[in-house]
């Protein structure tokens, strides 16, 4: 018996290994990961790990000992070169081959890279891995002026940590508002004011055209405008790692195509996490998500199905972002709504904006409002009286009946 091979050693991989053992699978499990660390959580990297609040041992998905105890063969620093679906084997760049009965592709995603003049200068960082963040943390110790390219969640979380630690911070956003791709104008405006109030300089409608410096970056060029910076952090989105799957002849379309059982176009190959394009039966459309809950649940579903189960992946997506002392928790996609309902008062930094479509709840942005977040998970797709939702004196529990 060749067992189960997992390509990638991120959160989906770590969770899949745990789930396989939890499902009483006793065969071999081999994890092949490029990074040198065991599977770890990525969300804290731009938050508590960057600020120094959490150390390496606190961000591991499972302690290192877990893989030994559970007889999981964890190969870090190992790059997979190819998958041969007909031979049911994978080959690493070191030339080692691993045969599989079932294969799980959990290759995740990688940051979109800038290729403009000067983009290879020292001092320009991306944020995806622990090594990336260790580099940023070291640079922050001597940096004075930080320039963040991209006003998405990663960029804004880093801006919050950097300005809190006393650095001068500028955020450059190409679009007309920050968070343009992921939230409504109302929420963009709220976060714009929040960051500006804490001393972050936000420049919208500002695309970066190049960088200058003698070996190390000193200036960010935005057309005719020049911004001084000795540390640049670029957060302009991610690209799913589909190349291995694609080259192996698996169907890919904006992610590795999987069905609602997390199975790819090859019956013995599954995929989980950021790298997948999957159907969401609740929403009635396909999604590619950049989200931890998605990675964890797809890992559980894949594990069950690789062992002959019949588990369907059907969850409403949810996300969170920590900036300063504010926790933003989101359910669904606000862009799906046709109406928005505000509950609470933005001035208190504790409020939620619900989004309804045809009278049904489809999304929430909840700031320091975990109840509103939890209730939205339960109300998703249900018709709710908007007036009751907007009235903070109406107990949310009463809306669940």
């Amino acid at each position, binding site marked *: 018996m060749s067992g189960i091979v997992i390509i990638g050693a991120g959160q989906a991989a770590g969770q899949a290994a*745990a789930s396989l*053992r*939890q499902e009483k699978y006793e065969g071999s499990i081999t994890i092949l990961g490029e990074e040198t660390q065991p599977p770890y*959580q990525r*969300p*804290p990297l731009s938050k508590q790990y960057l600020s120094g609040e959490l150390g390496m041992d606190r*961000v591991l*998905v*499972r*302690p290192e*000992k*877990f893989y030994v105890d*559970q007889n999981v063969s964890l190969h870090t620093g190992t790059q997979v070169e190819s998958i041969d679906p007909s031979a049911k084997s994978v080959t690493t760049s070191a030339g080692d081959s691993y045969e599989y009965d079932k294969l799980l592709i959990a290759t995740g995603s990688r940051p979109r890279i800038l290729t403009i003049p000067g983009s290879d200068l020292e001092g320009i960082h991306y944020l995806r891995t622990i090594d990336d963040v260790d580099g940023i943390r070291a640079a922050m110790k001597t940096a004075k002026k930080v320039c963040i390219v991209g006003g998405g969640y990663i960029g804004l979380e880093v801006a919050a940590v950097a300005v809190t630690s006393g650095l001068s911070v500028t955020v450059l956003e190409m679009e007309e508002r920050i968070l343009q791709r992921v939230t409504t104008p109302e929420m963009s405006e709220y976060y714009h004011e929040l960051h500006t109030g804490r001393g972050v300089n936000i420049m919208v409608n500002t695309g970066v055209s190049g960088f200058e410096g003698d070996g190390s970056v000193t200036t960010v060029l935005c057309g005719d405008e020049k911004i001084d910076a000795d540390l640049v952090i670029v957060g302009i989105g991610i690209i799913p790692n589909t190349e291995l799957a694609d080259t192996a002849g698996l169907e890919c379309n904006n992610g590795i195509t999987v069905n609602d059982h997390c199975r790819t176009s090859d019956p013995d190959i599954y995929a989980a996490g950021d790298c997948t394009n999957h159907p969401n039966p609740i929403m009635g459309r396909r999604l590619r998500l950049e989200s*931890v*809950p998605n990675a*964890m*649940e797809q890992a*559980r579903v894949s594990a069950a199905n690789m062992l002959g189960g019949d588990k369907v992946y059907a969850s409403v997506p*949810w996300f*969170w972002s*920590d900036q300063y002392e504010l*926790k933003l*928790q989101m359910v669904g996609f606000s862009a799906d709504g046709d109406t928005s309902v505000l509950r609470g008062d933005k001035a208190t930094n504790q409020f939620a904006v619900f989004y309804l479509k045809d009278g049904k709840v489809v999304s929430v942005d909840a700031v320091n*409002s*975990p*109840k509103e977040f*939890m*209730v939205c998970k*339960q109300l998703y797709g249900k018709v709710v009286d908007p007036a009751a939702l907007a009235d903070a004196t109406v107990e*949310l*529990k009463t809306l*669940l009946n």
Partner: protein
Amino acid sequence: MPQVKFIEFNGTEHNIDANNGDSIMTAATSNLVPGIDADCGGECSCATCHVLISAEWQTKLDAPSESEESMLDLNPDRSSESRLSCQIKMSDDLDGIVVNLPEFQY
């Protein structure tokens, strides 16, 4: 090393050695105790690490924070023993704590 006794709803027991400072959630996930998904990794963001702890043991714990309370409050299956295990840090004082795993979380 303080011990945690996890009891599944079907009565299966797991006696786990926890590190001081680790959460009860971490003690569970590090040792394959079932029924604690812990999707958010201990951020008090997902309420998938719901456990039941008797009144007797609860007297040794800090009361739930406002955010833990809010997460618990909307669970229709919540009981007076409900806690989120990611919010309880292990210490020698809690050696032997009994943690029951609710059926609804399976």
